[in-house]
């Protein structure tokens, strides 16, 4: 059995995100990191592999992104993936969610994974939708915001976090599953794994290698065209209550909420 984990390189959480007005895309210069939600997906894959209820032969990390995205793959491999695939091509730059999902699905088609895992959102775009788009192209069931995964009857029993509570869904494989950060506590990569990451196979694929129709990807192939961007209005300064006497602090918080008819 093969698990593919979709990963993404995103601006580091400490970097203030902004749209580059000249391109209409997110400014991705500066410090970057592996999307933290994806580390939960890798951990979920590792736990399926180590759990033993499924015979997982291989975990493959897959990303689409510029040259620098190799670093996200190195980190994914240091967290446990066996090898990685870097889909990179100038023609892919500027792809919207639908185009990105299509391109990733094409790369995955060649791999024929039994399970595709990914973080439920990226720390930059925060669209929550890539999993569903990929699943649609792969004609596989899509489950999102999964916070518990158990192997039951050869398939996966998933607990989804929904606004109204939890859904428990039994899904047969193959399936595309996006996971929430409550699903697990990702392990630290060991130093040996970090140092061994560069020795694990890394395949670089162009759009053509993956059989991607270039007219469906990139800025021109995307149906979403971004127009004007505005910075969000500056937040008003908050109120800081010094907690000197907890009863008094609670009273102040309750009064504050009450004033705004929030309780």
């Amino acid at each position: 059995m093969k698990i593919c984990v979709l990963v993404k390189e995103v601006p580091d959480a400490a970097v203030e995100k902004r749209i580059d007005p000249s391109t209409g895309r997110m400014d991705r210069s500066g410090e970057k990191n592996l999307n933290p939600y994806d580390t939960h997906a890798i951990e979920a894959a590792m736990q399926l592999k180590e759990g033993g209820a499924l015979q997982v032969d291989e975990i493959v990390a897959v990303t689409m992104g510029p040259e620098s995205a190799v670093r996200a793959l190195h980190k994914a491999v240091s967290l446990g993936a066996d090898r990685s695939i870097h889909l990179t091509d100038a023609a892919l730059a500027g792809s919207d969610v639908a185009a990105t999902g299509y391109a990733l699905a094409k790369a995955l088609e060649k791999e024929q994974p039994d399970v595709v895992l990914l973080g439920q959102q990226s720390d930059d775009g925060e669209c929550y939708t890539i999993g569903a788009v990929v699943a649609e192209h792969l004609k596989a069931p899509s489950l999102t915001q999964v916070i518990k995964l158990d192997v039951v009857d050869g398939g996966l029993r998933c607990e989804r976090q929904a606004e109204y509570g939890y859904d428990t869904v039994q899904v047969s494989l193959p399936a595309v599953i996006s996971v929430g950060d409550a699903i697990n506590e990702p392990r630290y990569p060991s130093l040996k794994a970090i140092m061994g990451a560069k020795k694990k196979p890394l395949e670089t694929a162009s759009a053509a290698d993956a059989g991607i129709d270039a007219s469906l990807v990139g800025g021109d192939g995307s149906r979403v065209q971004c127009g004007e961007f505005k910075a969000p209005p500056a937040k008003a300064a908050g109120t800081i209550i010094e907690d000197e006497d907890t009863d008094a602090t609670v009273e102040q918080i309750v009064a504050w909420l009450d004033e705004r008819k929030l309780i």
Partner: protein
Amino acid sequence: MTASTTAAPALRPNDFLNIDSLLSDEERLIRDTVRQFVAREVVPNVGEWFEEARIPRELANELGDLNVLGMHLTGYGCAGASATAYGLACMELEAGDSGVRSLVSVQGSLAMFAIWRWGSEEQKQEWLPRMAKGEAIGCFGLTEPDAGSDPGSMRTRARRDGDEWVLNGQKMWITNGSISDVAVVWAQTDEGVRGFLVPRGTPGFTAPEIHKKLSLRASVTSELVLDDVRLPDSARLPEANSLRGPLSCLNEARYGIVWGAAGAARACLEAAVEYSKTRIQFDKPIASFQIIQQRLAEMATKVNQATLLALHLGRLKDAGQLRNEHVSMGKLANVNAALEVARTARQVLGANGITLEYPVIRHMNNLESVVTYEGTADVHALVIGNALTGISAFR
């Protein structure tokens, strides 16, 4: 002169001189991993450990899982990382607490290094893999109550008795002593200084803990008492036959301190910057006052200088060019700088600077040990003086 058209990257206060740009991706990933570990497992708890004067034994296992223990050694389950990567790990560990870095230094650079460098193949096989995993803890006994800067005057003696050795003496200020599964003990013999591996539970060997410390409280410090301890000759480190044996180990550990001190200083600087921006006096953050900004600027300069110095020594060590005199300069400069930064940060924090709610007084007290252990600042100055003049002031 050519004009550059690319703009310099934005300035990051926590890496003012962009020292990150001097590190490889792999070095940064190792550093970030240890930093994350420290942020999650050490920082939230270490104030309490310090107050209660303890360090959880499980921390060694967790550090073993990370491959930090003996990470710069090769084979026997060790990671085989570069000296620079090891230094970066020491920096992050000591940004958490000098006691945590001491645990790792003593385990990896003193106990494991002694076995790795001077031990027999059997000794390496027996101890190193377990020590790398944190399953076994090691300590290093050189210093004695009356032999500190002058280890050659040690009184601990080992005498041959048939095929065996009999050890008598006392070691002092031994980090990890009471929790150790194996102690590397150095003793005078008729043949010169020799090292011995003394397993826990050996008859006549005890390791009582030293209490009432006001520094390195999140660290175990002990005496080692050897009262007619009988050991087979196979317990002797066969490759070590002079004081050069233990001194080589200390040089390894001191190298880690050069980095660690920079980490402790950085933690104090960060606490001071953060505090000064949120502490309101005279209706404005105290960071608005020039005197505070000057202090922050001087602290930041020291932290960046210390980090660059540590990195330079790391690159020299990886190139096989590092001399013990270089390490002396690094330890002297960086621990003194860290102490100044800690003391300044302590003042910026006012009364809050003396509580364990903030890291500053803990680092400040710890550094008071770091400045004298593994070679006092004074002796390191004399080593440098000797190298500059050709005249030894202490031998």
